[in-house]
């Protein structure tokens, strides 16, 4: 399936209470259909997830991974990925930043999920605030319509994707993003200027489920790049890399169309907010404060 329209699909749930209820029916249908519905490539023949003893504390990662696998059993248009980041739990370790760099083989100058830090208060009443900033996968993404070659678009599941094979690298989308979430790949290597280019730098990145081998000229060099909720991992029934590595267990992920999912639960907390709400971009990344 190839999606070329630049609008997000009408199935996008609004983040009102009503939206949640509406999507509940969709989910019920999705679950029922799991067995019969055409499963995604990664879902086929997948081993069951480990089972945790019932009496211990909940393993949030496994629960969310289950949520992901359930969602992947549905047709793409019925999933609506979202992320929530609990700022009270975020310890500002930047493990997510680096896990993402490693997972996606990001070159120098490209970053998908920096963690922004600020000091608050005055001595001796001081604290520090940490705000991880992935791509918001805006429901109303300003980065999309500006692209002159339709190289970036919202998928039916809400992920705003960049087609590395189509992007001409004009960087208009970069200026259009109000979150600074897009960065340009200038084709560099971390070991530039050292005695040796290391093997890990030319290994393929598996973004969007395809091997992108790096030589500094070929795409995604020369392209705009950004977080894609690790679609390639979702396809394999895995959680995004920043979620699994999150040292504070501060990052939640799942299908907003699934009322059973942990993300659905998180999005209903009273302390939820979104960044630059006033711009009307409708981010699919929430923050708990």
């Amino acid at each position, binding site marked *: *399936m190839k*999606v070329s329209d630049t609008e997000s699909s009408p199935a996008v749930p609004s983040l009102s209470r009503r939206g949640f209820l509406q999507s509940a029916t969709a989910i019920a249908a999705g679950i029922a259909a799991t067995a019969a519905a055409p499963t995604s*490539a*990664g879902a086929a023949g*997948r*081993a069951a997830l*480990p089972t*945790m*003893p019932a009496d*211990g*504390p909940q*393993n949030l*990662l*496994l629960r969310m991974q289950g949520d992901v696998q359930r969602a992947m059993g549905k047709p*793409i248009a019925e999933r609506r990925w979202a992320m929530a980041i609990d700022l009270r*739990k*975020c*310890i*500002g*370790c*930047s*493990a997510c930043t*680096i*896990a993402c*760099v*490693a997972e996606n083989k990001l070159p*120098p100058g490209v*970053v998908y999920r920096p963690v922004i830090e600020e*000091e608050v*208060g005055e*001595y*001796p009443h*001081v604290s*520090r605030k*940490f705000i991880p900033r992935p791509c918001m996968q805006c429901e109303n993404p300003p980065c999309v319509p500006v692209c002159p070659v339709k190289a970036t678009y919202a998928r039916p599941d809400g992920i705003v*994707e960049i087609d590395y*094979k189509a992007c001409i690298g004009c960087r208009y989308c970069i200026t259009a993003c109000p979150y600074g979430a897009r960065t340009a790949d200038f084709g560099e290597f*971390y070991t*530039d*200027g*050292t*005695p040796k*280019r*290391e093997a*890990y730098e030319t*290994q393929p990145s*598996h973004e969007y*489920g*395809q*091997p992108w081998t790096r030589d500094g000229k070929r795409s995604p060099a020369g392209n705009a790049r950004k977080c894609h909720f690790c679609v390639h991992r979702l*396809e*394999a029934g*895995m959680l995004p*890399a920043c979620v*699994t*590595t*999150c*040292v*504070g*267990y501060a990052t939640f992920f799942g299908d907003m169309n699934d009322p059973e999912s942990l993300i659905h639960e998180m999005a209903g907390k009273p302390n939820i907010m979104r960044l630059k709400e006033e711009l009307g971009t409708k981010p699919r990344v929430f923050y708990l404060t």
Partner: protein
Amino acid sequence: MTEHTENRRTFIKTGALLGGSAAAASQVPGLLTRLGAAEAGGYLSPQGDYPLARPENVLYSVCQQCNTQCGIKVKIEDGVVAKIDGNPYSPWNMMPHVPYRTPIMQTATVDGLLCPKGHAAIQTTYDPYRLVRVLKRAGKRGENKWVSIAFDQAVTEIAEGGLLFKNVPGEESRVVEGLKDLRAIRDPKVMKELAGDAKKVAHKEMPLAEFRQKHAAQLRHLIDSSHPDMGPRNNQFVFMWGRLKGGRGELIRRFTEAGMGSTNAHGHTTVCQGSLYFTGKAMSEQFVYDDKDKKMKWTKGSKFYWQGDQQSAEFMLFVGASPLEGNYGPTNRASRIARRVADGDLRIAVVDPRASKTAAKAWKWVPIKPGGEGAMAFGMMRWILEQQRYDARYLANANKGAAKADGEPTWCNATWLVKIEKGQPGAFLRASEIGLPKEQRTQRDKKTGEETAYEFDPFVVMKDGRPVAFDPYSEKTPVEGDLLVTTEVNKVPVKSGLQILWEQASAKSVEEWAALAGIKAADIVELAREFTSHGKRAVADIHRGVSQHTNGFYQVFAWYTLNLLIGNYDWKGGMAKAATYDAAGGKTEKVKQADGTEVEWAQPYPVNKIEGRLDPFGVSVIRHGDKYEDTTLFAGYPAKRPWFPLASDIYQEIIPSIGDAYPYPAKALFIYMGSPVYALPAGHTNIEVLTDVKRLPLVVANDIVIGETSMYADYIFPDLTNLERWEFAGSHPNMVWKVQPVRQPVIAPIPETVKVFGQEMPISLESMLLGLAEKLGLPGFGPNGFGAGKPYTHPDHLYLRMVANLAAGEKSTGALPDASAEEMRIFLESRRHLPKAVFDPERWKQVAGASLWPKVVYLLNRGGRFDDFAKGYDGDLLKNKYGTLVNLYQEKTAKTKNSMTGKPFSGVATHLPSPADALGRSLDDERAGFDLRLITYREIMHTKSRTAANYWLLALLPENSLLMNRKDADRRGLKDGDRVRVFSASNPDGAWDFKNGKSRPIVGRLKVVQGIRPGVVAYSLGHGHWAYGAGDVVIDGQTVKGDARRGAGIHANAALRVDPVIKNTTLSDLTGGSAVFYDTQVKVARA
């Protein structure tokens, strides 16, 4: 302004020397790993599978970027590490971790958490500056001119010695003694006899003349025949290390002690958190029978420490500890703390001069005055004792029986009566001293079956005003005592331990203690109230900020005593200790058989049993474990350099002591995975000795790159990084599960492959030591290294035995299940990229034994052995217990003297002012205008040396800063971003002098913040490198350009205070051995 001047493709040809022939060797055709990855098509339909999700591309091992030793899940593509994630089987990396029995097929897609350094470890291994061949010095020490030489040449030269540096100007005629010369005594029997008689001489039980006569033939093998207790010349071989874990630990001791016969094998404990360990040791000493001395004494104290159980505590008070940035560690602790704090299950408070990231999550941040931690603990103790908010029931238990009756796994000696000798608390009162009988006991020797009679003189408590004698370990006769006792028994003035503590605590008011700590009395009270409001689920968790002061031992003692007041040891949510599965083997069990007979079950491979081993003797170069007074070197007080009777692994003493030839000169120094020059406070003092070929004739380093210390070596052997090698990583005190993470090779080795004992293996610590052992013919190595017909000719011979021990377990019922056929297949397939030199299933199987082999596979498939989550607790108690006496009063310590002052150490926690010099005199550099206190700390994304090579992490923090409070900056007219220089009384030039004609000013960027106590400035660890690929080196005549990115930032260790008495080493804690990081006053000026 931005400028991009780096050359994209500067492939400097450095021969096969740097960065590895590696890549080619370690890559297998991509086909295997990218099965089905066809040409790309539409973007929404991924092409083929995601290779990193397949179990065949996953290997479990252990991180070592920092010392937390997390479990890792290494994903491999085409033989290259593609990604590292957390091991979901490891309790470090998933909360709760998945059940151990989960088949690896089910965990392939399950990733555990990992800190940023863990992810970036890829760049430590794949580092363009890594060494792949042996380097030999071609210029002066430290000049950084090298030639690469063959492994065999290096081994031969080091073993045999000779005119090794005749090409270096000034060293044309310098003959270097080889290791064969230093291995003076080779006969274990001779060694034993000498050891016994030397001890007699030291204890004045044998006249020196008699010794000399008796051992005339051996005198030339002694370092100093008039001081036989210094030991044989073998001791002039010194092996020092930084980070060392199981497996390699066994190897190094086997080589140094059993093989070379040297007593000088020393680690880095004191630079790390020394006094935590040695207070732990002193508090865990037990009064039991000693096999060697054949009598009862305080012994078996273990070098360990306690931390809080963050999985279950309700309140944690972190003092000088930052589990969200450093500590053990950013993964297992931080994940639990962050989650539980936000969920309202845990409340934390942080006592730290700096608003750490841990403080960012705290209910209360107390910016204490550095060094005031002990005073604060006493303030809290005073309030708690006064308000009687302590656990009286716990403290009253004098022995095991009483503790047991209360359901307490531990007990302490708060009630035991201590004699007041000359006004000072001294030894415990004994039954015989008040006319009660001693017990006559016998001890049966396990091996010989021989029975030895000995006496036990019971201890005494006061119970309801009457003395009661007791055995601390008696379960049959529970004894409780009165808590606060001051009295005379048989005219002997005595006090209970708690009374002595109370006198310490009540010497000052809460306000006075608060003033000493530079904090508010109200904070002390509030924290004390909170601390005593959660039963046993509160804990004061301390770390380097408490221990690395000149009064470190007593500060740690005070905080551990505070924990004793609520009796939280071994309780869920209280004080915990590490529990590890034994890999070294040797555990035995009597197993009753069906017919009622007993058979002995034993772990299969006791690897530390070494036939023909030497048992070294003599005072060590760092003078540890011996009392100054009990040696022939005793010459009144102060000693020339301090002695450390209660501590070991005194890192800061190794090289400076060699420099001073006290207690004796050394001839050869091996340095493994440690960088004292960089890591030690005032580490620059080591350079002076390292560059002096007279005082230190031979220096051999084992390193992965040319580091800040290895640059001064004569030879550098490349090593394998953690992704290429074996180790048994152990655990940390806050880990409540019993574990043993196993580090194993997950990629092909990057250094060259060589032949030792006829076997192929990569250049590494192992091949270096095996190669030397082969040349020297050391016992414990070679075809019969593990006993007749059992070779130790390949690293695997040791490590697979150790894995087999783990797989067999510690009990007859402890064996692991066998790997299934599918797991066996994956085991082999996932190692398809490993060369035979490191992975040979036949060799492995043969070493492990056919019956254990499937269990070994099971274990290696999971990266170690980990107890399941449910096994962490035992009801409200910890499952893995300390379970014995905790010394609130340390008799052994009270009976030990400070070698510099001649005064006895205090047996109870006490407040000592800091900073103090080696003579205990207060230092007051502030008066000389050094108006700021300099401290240091960890950033989550960096560690000492390795992360300087991690470009991903450098992007997070390319340059560290000197943190300063806004008020201090304003007062000095300094602005954020200014470049500033740091000066101290012992470094008035504010510079590192590398003694190679180069120097570097101690300059860094100023960061003006609110989150630091005014009057204190701080820099983080891990930046400001000048070696480790940051500077230029010449190899085989070619210059290898350094990478400026690796050298950015400030490393102010050279500004840290040199002890004014000892003069060539840092300030130290003479009781606990800590090297001192936080007691230096500095001046800061615009650079």
